[in-house]
């Protein structure tokens, strides 16, 4: 259903010609999108509890009401629609509060982005031939709705700043699209690095200048990653 409320689209598009083999037949591809994985139970992941179905003879789809929808195409493209309102990525507010002060849930945004990259890392392994590079995109629609503007608080959701909705960074425009091209090997082996790159682009759009994004850490190699241990050990909001 078309919505006027905030909604995100995450997508993966291989660069160059490639394909999933035996695309519509039962196999690993359907298993993966039916069980996309999670880093903790009942977290913000891509699980839909749906069975993959063929739509229009063109793509595979799984969905969970209006919250999550995943569409996979034979050419390797994956699109994920996820609700940006209080139903999912802005979890933790009732509808009235959200309509007046729409606060993105920092943890859900970061955890979902990590889970998306982990799903992509599993899917690209099925592509033949292996593309050298992958385009990843995050798009936000309807960041302005009614009289409200979506905002981000770049702090842990367990922090007082988040709870009190201080330090707000408002969406500067009604919509946003950010594109990142990564090496396929990087996505396959280090989805948490790629997730950080995507998240940083989103935070920059909200004009958050610091690289100190919550739920991230720096590895011994000096690379910043989305740290799933910090997510697993976070307080559920």
């Amino acid at each position: 259903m078309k919505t006027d409320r905030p909604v995100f689209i995450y997508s993966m598009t291989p660069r160059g010609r490639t394909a999933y083999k035996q695309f519509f037949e039962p196999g690993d591809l359907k298993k993966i999108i039916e069980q996309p994985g999670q880093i903790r139970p009942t977290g913000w992941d891509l699980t839909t509890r749906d069975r993959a179905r063929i739509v229009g003879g063109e793509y595979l789809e799984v969905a969970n009401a209006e919250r999550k929808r995943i569409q996979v195409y034979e050419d390797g493209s994956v699109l994920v629609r996820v609700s940006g309102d209080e139903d999912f990525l802005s979890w933790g507010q009732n509808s009235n509060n959200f309509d007046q002060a729409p606060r993105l849930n920092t943890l859900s945004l970061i955890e979902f982005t990590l889970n998306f990259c982990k799903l992509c890392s599993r899917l690209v392994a099925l592509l033949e031939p292996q593309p050298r590079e992958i385009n990843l995109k995050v798009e936000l629609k309807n960041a302005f709705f009614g009289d409200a503007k979506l905002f981000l608080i770049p702090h842990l959701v367990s922090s007082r700043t988040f709870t009190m909705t201080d330090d707000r960074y408002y969406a500067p425009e009604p919509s946003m699209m950010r594109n990142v091209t990564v090496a396929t090997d990087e996505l396959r082996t280090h989805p948490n690095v790629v997730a950080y790159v995507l998240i940083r682009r989103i935070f920059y759009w909200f004009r958050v200048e610091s690289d100190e994004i919550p739920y991230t850490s720096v590895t011994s190699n000096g690379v910043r990653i989305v740290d799933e241990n910090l997510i697993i050990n976070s307080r559920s909001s």
Partner: protein
Amino acid sequence: VNPEGTHGLGIIEVPPQNPDRQYFLIANAVDGGFRIRQFVFGIVRRNESSNDPFTIAQLYEYTQKGKSSLAQTLTRIEDKLDAVLTQGRHVDASDPEDVYAARAARILDEEENP
């Protein structure tokens, strides 16, 4: 030839023909020492001890496409060019950004009805 001169064995040597000049139309048929007058003609292909006539479909194909190696080569080149051109048109029609935009509209239920 036998001593009576009534029976003998003859050999007709047919030297290899230039493949580009084949096939040859049958202009004369001899049976029992007499030339058979016909109002149709055809082409046969030697196969072991028999002569296999071309079917109508085969004859039609060769009249349309020719049989020489040059004609067949040109036909193959044309087929390959057609494939390349078709593929090229397909690529042109599939700009990645256009494809993404259409798919994003679809997943947002914002597709325009035709």
